[in-house]
């Protein structure tokens, strides 16, 4: 029996309305009853007991960069590192110990042990994408604030629980694209200043989607917990290229492969679409339609996302540059103040500031999820080679059983979202 049918109709309140009713969608997240001593800064030097106590999960490549960003901050006391590669976690532990001139940094293979610690206030997460939703929701359930690298989700279905967990537990959860504000500020300023008049559309350029991986088996390196690296993803034999964290999306990194990443449309899409949605001010929305254009001849297909307010975002539209804006300059638009980072020190500084103040960070998880949903909708349209309708409130393709199959993937046991 389908238990969902037992729920009496009609639906009177959307999830978004619930969040608003709870006062959780305001700019300030609910304050915890106690503010950790570590989150109360003072002038001048910050005593270790007053710093934000941080742990890091997934510390290679981009995770290594985030690690440096957190470790270098005066208001941070770095307590623990976690990586499924012993050589990586040992190296990071050594760096932490060197900074504090002690041996106190704990090193974990399993993120659940790190999250179970009650003396850690916040974690940064930079695992491959297939782990993000599981770790972020589990971190919230343990009362941690989270800085999660982009792409924050691997599937459409992963987004709503990440937002719900953040709101349920009153957590500060920030996505990790620094480029949204820092790379596209010029375009954003032009749009928000009113100089372009009525903004109609913006184009985004990214390259290839991810694809299947069939690399040959190789011996698992000593100290590499391959089962844990795979986690919820389908089992596959170890191959160094399969799990390399370099930034390429062509055959030699996990970013190239379907089980762990959406490829460039999500990896760079998190940045570019994030900047585009910011510029045309639809960060709080999701598209209602994706139009698949398949031009005659050799021209590649491109997409057109249609928002409920009429704004259009195109992907790889022929003749258009990345973040090229179409507008009607004859329509007058009043300038609006452009939101930015709070605090100092880029996106990590913004997150740490919000950990102290309980405000929403610049790339609040809900905004990040909206951007990622755009990327996933695009991926599905390209896979199916057709247009799609999307009901953002219900998170479904109405009446489209074929597309609805793509909203999620079964996770390998015992992992469960």
């Amino acid at each position, binding site marked *: *029996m389908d238990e969902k049918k037992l729920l*009496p109709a009609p639906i009177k309140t*959307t999830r978004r309305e619930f969040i608003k009713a*709870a006062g959780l969608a305001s700019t300030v997240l609910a304050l915890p009853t106690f503010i950790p001593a570590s989150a109360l800064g003072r002038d001048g030097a910050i005593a270790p007991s007053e710093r934000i106590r941080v742990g890091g999960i997934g510390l290679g490549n981009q995770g290594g960069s985030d690690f440096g960003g957190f470790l270098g901050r005066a208001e941070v006391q770095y307590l623990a590192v976690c990586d499924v590669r012993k050589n990586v976690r040992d190296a990071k532990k050594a760096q932490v110990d060197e900074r504090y001139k002690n041996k106190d940094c704990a090193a974990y293979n399993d993120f659940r042990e790190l999250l179970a610690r009650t003396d850690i206030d916040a974690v940064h997460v930079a695992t491959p994408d297939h782990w993000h939703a599981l770790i972020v929701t589990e971190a919230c359930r343990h009362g941690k604030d989270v800085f999660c690298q982009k792409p924050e989700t691997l599937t459409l279905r992963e987004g709503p629980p990440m937002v719900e967990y953040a709101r*349920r537990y009153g957590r500060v959860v920030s996505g990790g694209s620094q480029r949204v504000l820092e790379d596209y500020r010029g375009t954003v300023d032009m749009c928000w200043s009113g100089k372009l008049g009525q903004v109609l559309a913006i184009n985004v350029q990214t390259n290839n989607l991810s694809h299947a991986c069939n690399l040959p*088996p190789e011996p698992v390196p000593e100290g590499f917990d391959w089962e844990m690296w795979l986690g919820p993803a389908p089992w*596959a034999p170890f191959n160094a290229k399969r799990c390399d964290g370099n930034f390429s999306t062509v055959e030699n990194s996990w970013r190239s492969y379907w089980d762990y990443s959406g490829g460039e449309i999500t990896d760079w899409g998190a940045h570019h679409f994030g900047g585009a949605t910011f510029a045309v001010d639809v960060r709080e929305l999701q598209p209602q339609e994706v139009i698949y254009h398949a031009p005659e001849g050799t021209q590649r297909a491109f997409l057109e996302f249609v928002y409920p307010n009429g704004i259009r975002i195109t992907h790889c539209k022929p003749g258009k540059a990345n973040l090229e804006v179409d507008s009607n300059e004859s329509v007058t638009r009043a300038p609006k103040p452009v939101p930015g980072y709070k605090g100092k020190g880029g996106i990590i500084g913004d997150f740490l500031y919000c950990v102290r103040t309980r405000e929403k960070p610049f790339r609040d998880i809900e905004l990040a999820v909206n951007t990622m949903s755009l990327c996933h909708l695009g991926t599905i349209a390209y896979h199916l080679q057709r247009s799609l309708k999307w009901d953002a409130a219900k998170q479904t393709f109405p009446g489209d059983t074929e597309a609805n199959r793509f909203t*999620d993937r*079964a996770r390998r*046991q015992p992992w469960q979202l």
Partner: protein
Amino acid sequence: MLEQSFEALKTYDWGVDRHVLDPIDEAVVKTRNDAAARKELESQLLAVLQSNAPRDAKDFVCRQLRTMGTAASVPALEQLLANAELSHMARYALERIPEPQAGQALERQLAKLNGQLKIGVISSLGTRGQGVRLLRPLLRDSDEAVARAAAIALGRIASADANKALGSARPRPALAVVLADASMACAEKLLAAGHAKEAKATYQRLLKNNPPELVRLAAERGLKACPTA
């Protein structure tokens, strides 16, 4: 090309050029509006699934069936749920096949499986939004991991019945946070569906039992979201 691709699939294993299977990928998309061609394609895929083909070949088949499998695929996939190597990929397909037969297969196998494979099936039932009657007794399972999985699945289903099942679960200290978390997921969904009374009662129930600090704060926040009238 398609014929050659199916021939290659019979011995497909890790390390083989993945492009040899591209024609099958393409056929799955192109036959969308051709029921007979789809049926033939599904039949060819199932033949591989039921053969002695390598694990990688069957992995590929399950991925295709996730996209286009029908009730006809369910018996072969159901058989694989007890196979430690292929159980996940069988669920990879079954979880996304919309026909009720797929869910019925998961329900049938639930009682027959143990440990991790059982947890996988529990997870898939939660994702499909079904099986409350079967999941409810698992909250008392002697395997704590199974009980935990059942709680998470019920929170995922988040129906009125799922909420009742969670509310009647025997207190179990190791699972207190997970059970409360699942109950709050139910309360949120019930409130969103206009059942404020049930949502409020759920939060009040959680607050009555001296919950851990995090749960208390979350439940108080949820209670605040419920209308006062």
